[in-house]
């Protein structure tokens, strides 16, 4: 209670008024004294916020209430709402913010690696801590009880991955040196509303940025490139200039389904015309009506070559100089993430050497192609949380024509989006005939199983393991287990006993058994590809953690 009273006793508005009224007698000793007093109060509050936040975090961890990261920020902000502003301004090299539907975590990871290589001290919020409280937590954890950042100043920089809808709030408290906008796809429509509402959030935020901020924009995403209109500061674009990646050339004969989330010109509403299209609405576009077109990128990949599953060799051209870089991650989307990071580093005047080593030595971020060894098998985690993300994961998985062992997890928790209709916009037809084994799990396993069935994967080729049994099935002898999710009905009726064998396979519910089943079905020495939605990924992680296969990963708890 005392803390609350303290925070109320110094409302920030009166600070500003006092400062103005005191300008007149600016040299008076009286005022200097008051200034010092005010400063002391700020420091005191910041310090108190830091101590209280970190104490709350420690207690929460000790009591196993959760990861104990978000609580730090929540408590600290409660005590001192301007805590982020107070601490962020102490960074000598300022802040970089990264946002977009897909690739925030990987891109900010790349930037952090590059800047560390260049000798900066980097503070980087992790996956899932990308709301205001997560950013506050990051700073508070790095702060001392006197309200100062640890070893503050001295070549310190923060790389902040920010949720799409949080951008306007963060820009109010931090003046970013560089702001990276990656891409915009439909994602969690039940949470964010329509795709267009994100654009208006971002426009509002950009209008508040000072002209000293450098915008780093994806030239190949029309909604992102269009954000530059009306911005008075410097803008750097990145993009891909390799025509061999065009979808039509790659899949001239096969039926392709691509969801486009930016079909019409942001200026005039006419449909874009594409010269090249890499995926979804990403490519080389122009508007035949008003002339809006893809800007010429400052950093451009003139050649992208896939050497192996997670090994892209890209040639980058910048002011007539060429550099070859290996991107050690799967998927074309990660080439874009690397380009975004390179461009952001370039905006901060980083040399090429740390850029190249930073990218090449990067490990996959949490669940983004990450490799884990388990029971003599390799697990590869590929997060897929929206139609375009899922489409690109499927393309990455099945483009080489190799059959894969797969576990799909579809959840509909708040962090995933409660509306799962987006799975119908995913091109699962691509997986048909390429899944050597397939387990379907999650809170919406049944929805996903129907989707796969309608894509043309026979039901007997999948093992469906929902998170829990239907209550309506309780007490009836013919439960899901006994059906084994496999047999057609005639066999089921005539051969009740043989079902018992099958029931070994799918005799269970929940993620644990889904993971067990998927691992069992994967032969020793082979790779199991797990494609989960966001909370599915967290659950897989927790499960692997309990088997001591992964390090603790508390950060994920927050989102």
């Amino acid at each position: 209670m005392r803390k609350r009273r303290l925070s109320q006793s110094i409302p920030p508005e009166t600070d500003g008024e006092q400062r103005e009224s005191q300008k007149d007698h600016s040299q008076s000793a009286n005022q200097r004294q008051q200034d010092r007093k005010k400063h002391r109060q700020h420091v005191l509050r910041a310090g108190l916020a830091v101590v209280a936040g970190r104490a709350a975090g420690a207690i929460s961890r000790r009591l196993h209430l959760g990861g104990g990261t978000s609580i730090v920020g929540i408590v600290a902000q409660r005590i001192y709402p301007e805590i982020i502003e107070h601490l962020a301004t102490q960074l000598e090299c300022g802040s970089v913010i990264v946002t977009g539907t897909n690739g925030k975590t990987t891109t900010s990871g790349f930037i952090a690696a590059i800047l560390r290589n260049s000798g900066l001290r980097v503070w980087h919020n992790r996956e899932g801590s990308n709301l205001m409280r997560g950013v506050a937590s990051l700073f508070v954890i790095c702060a001392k009880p006197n309200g100062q950042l640890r070893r503050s100043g001295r070549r310190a920089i923060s790389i902040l991955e920010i949720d799409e809808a949080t951008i306007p709030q963060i820009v109010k408290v931090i003046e970013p040196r560089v702001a990276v906008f990656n891409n915009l796809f439909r994602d969690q429509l039940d949470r964010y509303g329509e795709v267009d509402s994100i654009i208006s959030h971002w426009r509002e935020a950009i209008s508040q940025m000072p002209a000293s901020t450098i915008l780093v924009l994806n030239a190949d995403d029309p909604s992102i490139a269009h954000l530059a209109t009306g911005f008075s500061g410097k803008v750097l674009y990145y993009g891909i200039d390799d025509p061999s990646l065009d979808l039509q050339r790659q899949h001239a004969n096969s039926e392709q389904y691509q969801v486009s989330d930016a079909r019409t010109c942001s200026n005039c509403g006419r449909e874009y015309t594409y010269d090249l299209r890499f995926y979804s609405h990403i490519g080389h576009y122009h508007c035949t009506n008003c002339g809006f077109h893809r800007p010429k990128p400052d950093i451009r990949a003139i050649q992208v070559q896939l050497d192996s599953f997670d090994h892209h060799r890209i040639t980058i051209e910048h002011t007539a100089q060429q550099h070859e870089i290996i991107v050690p991650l799967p998927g074309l989307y990660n080439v874009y993430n690397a380009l975004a990071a390179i461009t952001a580093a370039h905006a901060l005047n980083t040399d090429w050497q740390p850029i190249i080593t930073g990218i090449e030595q990067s490990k996959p971020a949490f669940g983004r192609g990450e490799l884990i060894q388990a029971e003599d098998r390799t697990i590869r985690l590929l997060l897929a949380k929206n139609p375009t993300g899922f489409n690109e994961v499927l393309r990455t998985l099945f483009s080489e024509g190799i059959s894969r062992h797969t576990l799909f997890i579809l959840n509909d928790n708040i962090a995933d989006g409660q509306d799962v209709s987006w799975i119908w916009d995913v091109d699962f037809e691509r997986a048909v005939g390429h899944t050597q084994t397939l387990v379907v799990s999650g809170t919406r396993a049944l929805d996903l199983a129907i989707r796969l069935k309608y894509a043309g994967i026979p039901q007997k080729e999948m093992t469906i393991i929902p998170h829990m049994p239907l209550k309506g099935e309780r007490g009836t002898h013919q439960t899901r287990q006994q059906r084994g999710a496999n047999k057609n009905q005639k066999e089921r009726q005539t051969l009740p006993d043989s079902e018992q064998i099958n029931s070994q396979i799918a005799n269970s519910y929940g993620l644990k058994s889904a993971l067990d089943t998927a691992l069992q079905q994967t032969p020793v020495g082979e790779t199991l590809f797990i494609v989960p939605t966001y909370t599915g990924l967290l659950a897989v992680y927790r499960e692997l953690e309990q088997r001591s296969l992964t390090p603790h990963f508390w950060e994920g708890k927050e989102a």
Partner: protein
Amino acid sequence: MSDGFIQPLTLILGHLYPDQLNLYGDRGNILTLRRRCQLRGIELRIVGLGIGDALAPDEYDMLFIGGGQDKEQAPVAQDLHEMKGIGLWAAIEDDMPVLAVCGGFQLLAHYYRPAEGPDMQGLGVFDAWTIHKGARIARCIGNIAIRWNGQTLVGFENHGGRTYLGTAKPLGKVLKGYGNNAEDYTEGAVYRNAYGTYLHGSLLPKNPHFADYLIKLALQRKYRSEFHTGQEKLEELNGHTHIDQVPVNNSQQLERTTGNIVPSLLALDDLLEWEAHASILERLGLHSEAVAVLATQRTRKG
């Protein structure tokens, strides 16, 4: 055997604005109709009708229109009036089955009044209108179950506008969820064989009975005249002649009932669909409905 009428049943589905109105997995409805026809040896051809295309009612047997963003809905509304309005009206008056989901539903009512800006004129097929009461009023978002024809329909709704029915009949009564306006427990609207609804998720995959109902309406409408004109043709349609051409369990069976001729569709193994249906009912706390659904499926099997 005469050579006159040996051909598989064919239906043509007109998909209105597939590029503009596809926000909430509307493709799922199309894929469902296609697959459920395919499994019965019915050929379902899908024709996309974009902006600028005219709608000739004789060319189609079914129409589908999905939902989109407000930005995309405005040019669609204009096109619907100018290019397709008369054709659509004619089709609906001729009992063509039409499914309109979310934005499409709003466009088939009288008007959509956005929070800002001018009204968007609809076709007025349904005597209903939609008002968006501003950003401060919460959107209707979440899982929903309604009672339709003594059965349940489940889906997901996500709409800012509230729809109020005039003389239009609702599609169903809301059991759990918001429905048209979160006030009067109505959901959707029906006029002849045109169905408007807010349910997506997608609607048809988890509601196979509704998908089959639409297919039946289309078959009935298309082949009714032929059933009446010649007994011979009916016999042929009844699976006797084209049985050689299509695998047995894929062939379409048409049964004659007293007076009217109603095609009855081959039953499919929909257990997975019904389990998904029941799991949504259970999530909404509608346990007795869920039990009923599962029991029906089991007795059907037994």
